[in-house]
């Protein structure tokens, strides 16, 4: 799949957002892709799909962002998207302890369905709110313990949203360059002559 995308665009990456219902996944994506903060949004149904092309070091990167529903009854839909993801963004609400307490459950899901090489990012959203329940440090420690990136954001105030996605694009780009270098390692393949000018040989014959 990866390879196909490479031909269509210089580089395409797939990102999936997961986390409890109401933590603001859709708002994060909307803020990043459309620059909007739509208040009073209904719950996402199934998965939403959005594309944004960004530039990383003069190269265009097509970000495919899958915004999954947080509700339990859509789990059988959302789970199927983990496998092809290059990055998973796990979101919780810093003003809501239960959304943080669920993180281990989400990690278990990721463990079960996603590729082991997937880039994992922990995001504490809604830092614009005054009623914070989870201190930054607690989130940081959790992320560190589970080998994830960590960032706190506010989709409402547009804090760190751009940074979050651009950082991921940047990292995936680096990863892709490395795998690409491996992919075309000549020792794995027959080295065959590359030019196909048949005119020359006909003369010799």
């Amino acid at each position: 799949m990866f390879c196909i995308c490479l031909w269509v665009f210089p580089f395409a990456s797939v990102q999936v957002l997961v986390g409890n219902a109401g933590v603001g996944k859709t708002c994060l994506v909307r803020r990043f892709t459309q620059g909007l903060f739509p208040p009073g949004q209904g719950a996402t149904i199934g998965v939403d799909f959005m594309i944004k092309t960004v530039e990383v070091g003069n190269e265009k990167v097509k970000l495919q962002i899958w915004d999954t529903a947080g509700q339990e009854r859509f789990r059988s839909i959302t789970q199927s998207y983990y496998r092809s993801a290059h990055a998973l963004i796990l979101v919780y609400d810093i003003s809501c302890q239960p959304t943080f307490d669920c993180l281990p459950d989400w990690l278990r899901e990721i463990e079960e369905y996603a590729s082991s090489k997937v880039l994992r990012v922990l995001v504490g959203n809604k830092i614009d709110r005054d009623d914070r329940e989870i201190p930054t440090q607690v989130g940081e420690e959790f992320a560190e313990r589970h080998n994830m990136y960590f960032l706190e954001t506010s989709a409402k105030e547009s804090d760190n949203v751009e940074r979050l996605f651009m950082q991921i694009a940047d990292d995936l780009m680096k990863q892709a360059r490395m795998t690409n270098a491996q992919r075309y390692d000549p020792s794995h393949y027959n080295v065959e002559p590359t030019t196909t000018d048949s005119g020359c040989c006909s003369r010799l014959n």
Partner: protein
Amino acid sequence: MSSKENSYLEIEQLCQQELEKLQLEEETLLADLNGMLNQKTYIEDKIRGLSRLIPTLKIMKNEAQDLVETINDISESSEKISSKIRQLDSARGHGDECLLRVNDLIDLEICSQGVQQAILDLDYEKGAAHVHRFLSMDQTLLKRTANDMNNVSNMLNSVRTLQEAANQLQAIVEHKFNEAVNAEDLAAIERFFKIFPLLGMHEQGLKNFCTFLRTKLALTAEKNLKVAVTTPLADKRHPIIYADTMILLFEGLARVIETHQPLFETYYGPGRLISAVNILQKECDTQVKRIIMEWSKTRQIQKKIQQINEMSRMTSSGSFNKLEKIDPKDLDILIGEISLMHYRCELYIKFIERKIAADIDVGIADQEQRTKTTKTLEQLILNSELSQCKHDLLSHYLKLEQYFMEESVAKAVNMDQLEPSFQTSSLVDDTFFIVRKSIRRSISTGSLDGICVTINNACRVLENDFCDVIKARLKQGYPSGYLDLTQAYNVLQNSIQQGRLQSGDTEQSRTSFIVALNNADNSTKYVNALVDSIMKETEGACPNLNATEKGKLESCLSGISGVSVKLSEILDYGFQQLKSTVIKPRVNPWVDQFLNFSHQLTEDELSAYEAGESFIQILIMNLETLLSSFKDILTANNYENFIKVLTTEVTQRFEKVIMKSQFNRLGGLVLDKDVRSLAGYITSGTYWSARDQFARLTQIATILNFEQIDEINEYWGNSDGAITWRLSPSEIKSILNLRSDFRSDDIKRLRL
């Protein structure tokens, strides 16, 4: 003299000519003068006439000034008049208003008298019409009128009477309606239903009427559900009886909406369908929920899902699976029923959306109100129990479908069988049949999410369960063994023809390797066909996908295309194996035979060499044997690939042994012939040109076939015969050095 005379004559002639000219001119001048004289009187007349006109013009000017003044006067007075008219207009407006008020008052009087009588006469239509008339009056205006009038009490009385009558009528009609509902008197129900809007009770009327319709629907639905529950197992419809019950419910609802919509529109006005559907939806929700509950109980959905969940937990934790596995075949019909149920929910929701949207379009003009109502519609559908049930159905469907696909493919892997004289085993056809079936079924649910998830799951099953099996078989390798090749070929053929594998491990592994390779090749074709057909079928089933939805589908489909990438990696891996176990060990000794021949030939030796079995004939014969042993057991693509790998190996090895030999002119000639016949042989057996693979070898042979060292210049640089070299200058020099009859000093001196 004569010349002088001549000149005089000439002059005279000229003078004559001039004279004639002058005379002519004089005549024309005279004519002109005459003409002018003639006109003189005429012109003088004109002038006289004009001078007579002057006083008249003066009069005209004065008159015109008078006219302007008059017009100004008129315009002033007309403006005055128009302002008067305006005043008159407004006065008439007041008059009209008065008339209206008087009319209203008269009507009020009539209505207040009539309404009582009508109520007494039980003529509710008439009474309601009076009340309607009363309600259509401007109530504030009435109040103002009351203030202006002397006989206030009289009018206020009428108003009071009417208000009372309205309340009375409202109560009566509501009561009568309920009575009619209880008596199931359809005519009466319809009668009072039509009276409600006259009394300004639009919402109330719709509510009452739809509540009545609800009870009717509930009765039918209950009956249908009872029939469904008691349907005998042997009945043909039994496997999808709940989907049938569902469609009966939806059809009933749709019929109610379709038949009553014109009624609503006529008596209540357009734009009110949403209120009606809102009430009917509650019944729909209740009934759908009941059907689902009954269905889930009868089909033991929870138990099955739980079993599946437990099984996946056990396999993922690695513990041995003691649970009785559900046979995926047993789920097949159930999955079909769920997809049908889901599709029917989807269809009904689409129907409601379409109906109400059209009604809103016609009935609500105000843009703001329209968006608000549209939003209400969205919320109505989103929050309905029907939508929840639909989501739950989809969730069940996806769980079961995933299990079905995984287990069926696992079964296909376990039951993999090689039919005699087939190049691929049953695994490929079976797997793709299952995957295709699942995806098709997901398309029949009508849910894009369902399709996408099933595609995702199919990707996973194909990439992991299916490809890994093929790869694992290739990993076991192709044993080269000590068997003579023809013998090996016969054994392989036998085992394929008899449809069972021979006891020998070697042959078994060989067959399974070759079949795996063929399976991978055939699967690539199937994958491409699968992507095409999904795209087409989805477009057929969901024709109005927007750009985002299309992107979603395409993104998921690209995952399936990714399977073919993995397959081609597997094929590469397989050919690497074949190369190291089959091709290299055989080709190398065959080509190495070249070293046993002398390539510095005399004329006699040349003819002897050509008469006897030459190196190249033996090589081609050996290659022929090797190729023919693979020709029938490999698929066409794989066979082509096999030849390619073989050719690369042969040409590379050939190059190596050439570099180890010494040639004279005749030796070079023979080599050139040999290379051509080898290239000819390979090309004859393939659809592609092997020329490119032979490019280096051909060039080496050409160099060794030179008569003189300088010949290289004909092929090098800017000369006419220059070619694209695959050999570097230093390689060319070392090849030239292989010719024992070329002096190395001359070679060194070459400028390349």
